[in-house]
């Protein structure tokens, strides 16, 4: 079986209007992929920037997959939330990006979006907080049924992902 190592960090986020941010992340793969070691999902700490406006998480990612096919190449999906001083959490953005397919270190930027809702919900969000959220997390990384949504842009999440591939040449894949 061919093996893929995804080793890197979720560095941080910029461009969000809120300041205390944390990120829930996960990696989704197709049915032919098996996770041999590592943790497939997690949550970063809440970071409040003191200098500048980038919230830094430096959250390590270390995954080892084995696969029999290229379908369902891993996708990293993210949910960025903000936490206020009362401890309430509000959604700041959803985003996803494919894990790169060429070996080496890559700097990735993942733009995010959040569902808008009706004008009433937008007004309520401005005053009280909260706001609409997705019921099913898989809409973040799949394209089906997206046409129903009206969304607004959030900030950008910065990642540094390194990729190591093994035994792909046995299956005739050049990388």
């Amino acid at each position, binding site marked *: 079986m061919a093996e893929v*190592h995804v080793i890197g960090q979720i560095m941080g986020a910029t461009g969000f209007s809120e300041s205390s941010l944390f990120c829930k992340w996960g990696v989704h793969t197709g049915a032919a992929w098996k996770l041999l070691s590592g943790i497939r999902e997690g949550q970063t700490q809440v970071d409040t920037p003191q200098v500048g406006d980038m919230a830094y998480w430096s*959250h*390590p990612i*270390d995954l080892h997959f084995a696969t029999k096919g290229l379908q369902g190449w891993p996708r990293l999906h993210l949910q960025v939330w903000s936490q206020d001083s009362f401890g309430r959490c509000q959604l700041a953005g959803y985003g996803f990006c494919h894990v790169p397919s060429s070996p080496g270190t890559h700097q990735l930027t993942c733009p995010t979006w959040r569902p808008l809702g009706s004008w009433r919900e937008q007004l309520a969000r401005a005053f009280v907080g909260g706001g609409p959220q997705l019921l099913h997390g898989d809409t973040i990384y799949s394209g089906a049924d997206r046409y129903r949504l009206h969304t607004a842009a959030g900030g950008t999440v910065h990642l540094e992902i390194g990729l190591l591939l093994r035994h792909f040449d046995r299956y005739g894949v050049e990388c």
Partner: protein
Amino acid sequence: MAAGGPSVFLLMVNGQVESAQFPEFDNLYCKYCFVYGQDWAPTAGLEEGISQITSKSRDACHALVWNFPIDITFKSTNPFGWPQIVLSVYGPDVFGNDVVRGYGAVHVPFSPGRHKRTIPMFVPESTSKLQKFTSWFMGRRPEYTDPKVVAQGEGREAQPS
């Protein structure tokens, strides 16, 4: 066809902790240590170190220069658990106590050659305002008992920074 057995490879890391930018603090020293998975073992060099105490330079960039050497070789059979270098920076506060000024971690680069990495640092923060004031006053900041925690992904939800 199958490979004969686990193949061992060596990873040699040499470099330095060059300098830091901390706009608010001065007279800092740093400690480094390596965190790695179960399949990795250091074969040569030092796994941990403490640098000298340095003051800010007088010029415009206010850099804190350590120029602290790092030299280590690892032996492994599996890229999982690729080593990370964890840095902790400490300095004196207003009352003269030694407090932590930042933690940061980064993976050792994968490709051979010369690399430069800039690591953002963070400090854990108390969640209540009273605790923040007490810790400022008593000089006892929230600190990790084991800095290696910074290199792990689990359990981060409970820590504000």
